[in-house]
């Protein structure tokens, strides 16, 4: 245990020297960002967008990742408030567990900007997000167009009970209600994951011989479903719709370009817009309380534009 002490002391000395070197009398705008789970691919993209925007604007960004834990994110918000950042951006893990933290930050005089998921209070300056219900509706309307008002659909859910899954489900169903000829014949829970999306689709393919369209709540599950259909040699008989449309070689835009997905629907990250709104507020401009980011339909015709998008 003595060695532990030596190790801890050494590492702390290192810590101390690093921090002293980094801190100087700078007049830069310092923005704190509390991310709920930076390991998710979409949130990585979100972080990249925000970092790039911060670098362009010459803003110092303090980034903390709670790795999917409410208690860590609460601690992170408290620590950014204690640091007296000029503005606090937060993408909460979930509404209620972070509501009190956001209220405390606002009470301490820090302007708070809530990104992506909301909190159960209006004690913040602005909320910047895409609208999952609206995106689900866009997917539903596109499905109706593809099917011509007649067909059988299977739906693969994200984590059931999670807000984005519920909203993507609701918007899609709202749109489908316009065409009684289009039926959802089965729903499965794919937990946002490619491997589970594939496994659920394998079961669905055995149970149903006449699937015309697969709607998955995100692109990885839609690609998983496509993989399952290809194993059965049936991938040409049905359409595959996903959501997110991330850029990069693993993203949904590339999957559309490769002909795996028929279409996907952009779920834009609030990274850039979030910082923009925060800086506008710091300059003294009036900013709207709610900023909704628009979606875009990604099809083989325009997918190339989204693959390399920054």
């Amino acid at each position: 245990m003595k060695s532990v002490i030596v190790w801890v002391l050494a590492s702390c000395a290192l810590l101390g020297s690093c921090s002293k070197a980094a801190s100087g009398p700078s007049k830069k705008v310092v923005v704190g960002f509390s991310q709920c789970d930076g390991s998710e691919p979409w949130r990585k993209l979100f972080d990249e967008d925000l970092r790039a925007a911060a670098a362009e604007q010459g803003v110092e960004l303090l980034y903390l990742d709670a790795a999917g834990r409410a208690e860590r994110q609460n601690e992170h918000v408290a620590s950014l408030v204690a640091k007296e950042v000029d503005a606090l951006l937060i993408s909460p893990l979930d509404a209620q567990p972070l509501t009190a933290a956001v209220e405390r930050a606002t009470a301490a005089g820090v302007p708070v900007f809530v990104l992506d998921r909301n909190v159960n209070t209006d004690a913040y300056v602005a909320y910047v997000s895409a609208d999952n219900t609206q995106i689900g509706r866009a997917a539903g309307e596109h499905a109706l167009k593809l099917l011509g008002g007649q067909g059988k659909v299977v739906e693969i859910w994200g984590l059931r009970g999670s807000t984005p899954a519920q909203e993507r489900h609701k918007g899609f169903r709202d749109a489908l209600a316009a065409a009684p000829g289009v039926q959802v014949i089965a729903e499965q829970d794919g937990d946002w994951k490619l491997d589970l999306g594939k496994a659920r689709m394998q079961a669905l393919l055995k149970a149903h011989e006449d699937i015309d369209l697969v709607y998955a709540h995100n692109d990885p599950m839609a690609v998983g479903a496509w993989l399952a259909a290809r194993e059965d040699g049936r991938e040409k008989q049905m359409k595959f719709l996903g959501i997110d449309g991330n850029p990069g070689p693993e993203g949904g835009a590339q999957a559309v370009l490769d002909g795996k997905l028929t279409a996907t629907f952009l779920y834009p990250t609030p990274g850039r817009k979030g910082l923009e709104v925060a800086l506008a507020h710091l300059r003294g401009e009036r900013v709207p309380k709610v900023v909704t980011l628009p979606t875009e339909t990604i099809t083989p015709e325009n997918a190339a534009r989204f693959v390399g998008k920054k």
Partner: protein
Amino acid sequence: MKRLTQSEVFWAAVTLLALVVVSALTAPDSLKSGQNLFLQAATARSLLNQVSFIGVLAVGMTFVILTGGIDLAVGSLLGLSSASAAILLMDHGWSAWSSVALVIGLCAAIGALQGALVAAKLQPFIVTLAGFSMVYALARIVADDRRRDIRMGEGGADAAFGALQAHVFGWLPVSAVILAALVALAWLALRTTVFGRNVYAVGGNERAAHLAGVPVGWVLVAAYVISGACSGLAGAIYLAQYEQGNPDLARSGYELDAIAAVVVGGTRLTGGRGSALGTLVGVLLIGVLNTTMGLHDWNENFQKLAKGAIILLAALSQHARVREFVGRIGASR
């Protein structure tokens, strides 16, 4: 003095103290008013809030590990407890006391089932791995696949439940006081009662304990009941702190945090040696380390690396050869 310097708890406590001092000395200042970020009531409050429910889990885990077992189910029990308590408080209008009592009882009963299987000579790892999966499923079924928010105040949960959210002197969370009381209770139970002696005996050598007339089966059942009950209590604390019962807490790996705290606190995974006090020190050590690294903007990856390193060092410090080696260096001086 020799006895003191040879105990793991002593060295873990010294390390903790050193870490606190170093954290305070190296902590960066706030950007505008230039206050030391570590020496603040807000830092203490958020640190203690964070460690309290993991600490309660870890105290229960200590009993199980002392018997030479492991309880992987505590993470999903945490989810089950928080979600069930939320439903009782909000949907059924139960009082705080009866809600908390019921979830503690429920988790203790699940612990009893696991303990009975372990007493029947099934491997603890396998039993509680199965338990982890089944309790996770049960939590999601009970919660109808949803996270369950609670609201305090008019028309919300029983106001008495708010006591779990309160702070003494404005910085000391009631949950941390509960943890301290629980540690004291566990320490007394392990040091001064026949049951405590039996726990050490079973973990030290199960066969010998059996031959010496220790009711091995009952001791095992009791250890898992305690771990289950602690998970139930931890779930109630979690619910109070974050106002959300989350059946998916099983996915967050809190059982591993609890095990890590127990090991860092000097309790042997092979059983028979260790203490509840050590576990408290272990929980605080990991908590302070996390907080300090957070204040220095070290990212999550480094925090994970550091936690792993601390666990390894704690394990190494318990290793017979390492101790012998360190002892020899000491003697040659």
